């Protein structure tokens, strides 16, 4: 956009300067040709005149003087020299003009004399100088004016485009679709705007129907999940149940919860993608409590690992977030560490906050994640060789975990731990008072 207007401006200036320059050049050439013609004509006339005078006088010197008197034109100096170069006659006094600002033409004429015509180039030079000056005085302001006008015109022509750019960026940021074109746009621009509007409308429709589908599917899934989870709980409450049946019911219940969390993530990310609506379910969440609860629940399932798990958490590490999804994220990170370590290998969980950034580190003494897999494990549908070799998938996968973290304004990364294995680090912005002032705020101010 900036370049186009500048180009336009430069072109206008260049055009004016080219016209001025070529005017000077053409004038110089024309004047030079006129000089040449004048010199040729003068020589021709002098040769003819000398021949006639000699026929009358039969004395070369006298004939030369007569010829000059008779035929030498004004504005030029004519010298007639004998064969040895001695001056026989001259139209000017003193030595002839010499140097850079003269032109000279000579010819040998019957009956044996040199005719030399010299003219000054001074008139031509001063004419050109005057012309150049005139052009400079006229063209420079013209060039400036034209370039400014060009810039203005280009700006004006491009204004609908820059408005469309701003509008398109606003649409990308907010997701609210508004037409790019405006009545009164130039035809070419209006056509472009109309095409873009159709494209945007089509994309918006696709995104909208996908969002609706996701929401419908999630809500439809929720009812059977409620029944499934309730029936499993109900079945487990039967005191006559054997240990093996109870265990398999428990496994089923864990999977149902994992599915519920996936549905929750689906609904949450649907919002987090398009608008900020997803954050309306945000509440203060204490990550330290979540980590302690997760460890307690996981150790009930893996009692043999109790000695391997160490947790170092502050009393309160607050973030503003989705309680269900953050609990799921923590549980999955810890469950993952337990899954990829053998009994006897340490799993260490650290929950801390510094400079209003909350940080959960889950590291272990297992085999770790090879550097070449560290980004891929967050890609959808990727399963590392270790993961493929091991047990079933569980709960929120790492790609969803990362999207949930980012929707909270945070991030999750993996590196290698001092303990020898993997080190997962989840960072989230710490809790901050909301900008929203509730009714209670006004009540307190009154009180």
């Amino acid at each position, binding site marked *: 956009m900036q370049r186009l207007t500048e180009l336009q401006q430069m072109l206008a200036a260049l055009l004016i300067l080219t016209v001025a320059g070529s005017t000077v050049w053409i004038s110089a050439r024309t004047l030079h040709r006129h000089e040449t013609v004048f010199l040729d004509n003068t020589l021709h006339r002098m040769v003819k005149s000398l021949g006639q005078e000699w026929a009358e006088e039969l004395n070369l010197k006298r004939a030369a003087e007569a010829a000059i008197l008779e035929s030498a034109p004004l504005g030029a100096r004519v010298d007639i020299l004998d064969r040895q170069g001695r001056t026989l006659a001259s139209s000017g006094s003193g030595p002839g003009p010499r140097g850079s600002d003269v032109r000279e033409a000579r010819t040998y004429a019957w009956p044996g004399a040199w005719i030399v015509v010299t003219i000054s180039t001074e008139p031509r030079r001063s004419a050109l100088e005057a012309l150049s000056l005139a052009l400079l005085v006229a063209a420079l302001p013209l060039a400036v004016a034209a370039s400014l006008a060009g810039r203005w015109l280009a700006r004006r022509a491009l204004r609908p485009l820059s408005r469309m750019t701003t509008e398109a960026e606003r649409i990308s940021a907010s997701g609210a679709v508004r037409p790019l074109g405006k009545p009164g746009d130039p035809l070419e621009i209006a056509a472009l705007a109309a095409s873009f509007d159709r494209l945007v409308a089509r994309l918006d429709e696709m995104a909208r129907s996908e969002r609706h589908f996701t929401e419908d599917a999630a*809500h439809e899934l*929720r*009812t*059977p*999940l*409620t*029944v*499934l*989870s*309730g*029936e499993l*709980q*109900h079945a487990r*409450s039967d005191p006559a149940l054997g240990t093996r049946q109870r265990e398999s019911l428990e496994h089923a219940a864990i999977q*149902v919860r994992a599915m*519920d969390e996936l549905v929750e993530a689906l*609904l949450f990310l649907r919002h987090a993608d398009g608008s900020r609506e997803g954050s*309306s*379910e945000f*509440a*203060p*969440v*204490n990550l330290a*409590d979540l980590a302690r609860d997760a460890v*307690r629940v996981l150790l009930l399932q893996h009692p043999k690992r109790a000695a391997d798990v160490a947790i170092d958490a502050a*009393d*309160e590490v*607050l973030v*503003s977030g989705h*309680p*269900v999804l953050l609990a799921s994220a923590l549980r999955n990170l810890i469950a993952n560490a337990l899954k990829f370590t053998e009994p006897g290998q340490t799993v260490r969980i650290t929950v801390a906050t510094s400079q209003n950034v909350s940080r959960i580190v889950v590291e272990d003494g297992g085999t770790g994640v090879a550097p070449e897999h560290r980004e891929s494990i967050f890609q959808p549908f990727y399963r590392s060789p270790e993961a493929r070799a091991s047990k079933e998938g569980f709960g929120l996968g790492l790609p969803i975990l990362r999207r949930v973290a980012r929707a909270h304004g945070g991030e999750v990364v993996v590196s290698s731990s001092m303990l020898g294995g993997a080190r997962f680090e989840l960072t989230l912005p710490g*809790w901050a*008072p*909301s900008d929203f002032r*509730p*009714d*209670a*705020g006004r*009540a*307190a*101010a009154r*009180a």
Partner: protein
Amino acid sequence: MVRVLVVEDSGPTRHLLSRSLADADMTVATAARFATGLRQASTGEFDVIVLDLGLPDGDGLELCRELRATGIQTPILCLTARAKVEERVRGLEAGADDYLRKPFALAELRARLRALARRGGPTPPRRIEAGSLAIDFGGRHLLQSGGEVPLTAREWAVLEFLAARQGRLVTRDELLEAAWHEISDAASESLDVILSRLRRKLGGPGGACEIRTVRGEGFVLEIRP
């Protein structure tokens, strides 16, 4: 015997609720539609109502409003697919008393229903203002001298339970059942941690709002204006 009315359109959910609540010694009646739900609830024969907000033939919140408008004060627990704060506030404004996100733990549902049925009428305060403290239970905001103090869901559960019985003794087991839905050593340990945090957030000892320990018996929320 606690008498429960379940208004829920999904057959399997209704079936599950009636069996599991009956197992917990409650008498259960069910309704699948807005109209039948409203008719049954209007009899005033129930101690507590479980109401699914997603009814096919009417808005569940409208049912709350109509019941309250006719003077029926039976406590209502809403079941909802989403746990948004605005939805909670709208529900409380329409006259609902409690909220539970689907899918829920049966133990939690039973504990909350018992708590609602026992209360049998007096609703917990919507708002407490004492000294520099302002607590808005609907929108879940706690303000100390105008500045927002963050409380987690569990901290709210404990505070709400105590506030509904302010000035009265609440036993440890009652609090555990209300906020943890289990009486275990781990939950009891968490309760101690949460009580100490709550005391700090309410402004410490000697403040306008204080959770006092009654040794060997339980806790009392005391509010001094």
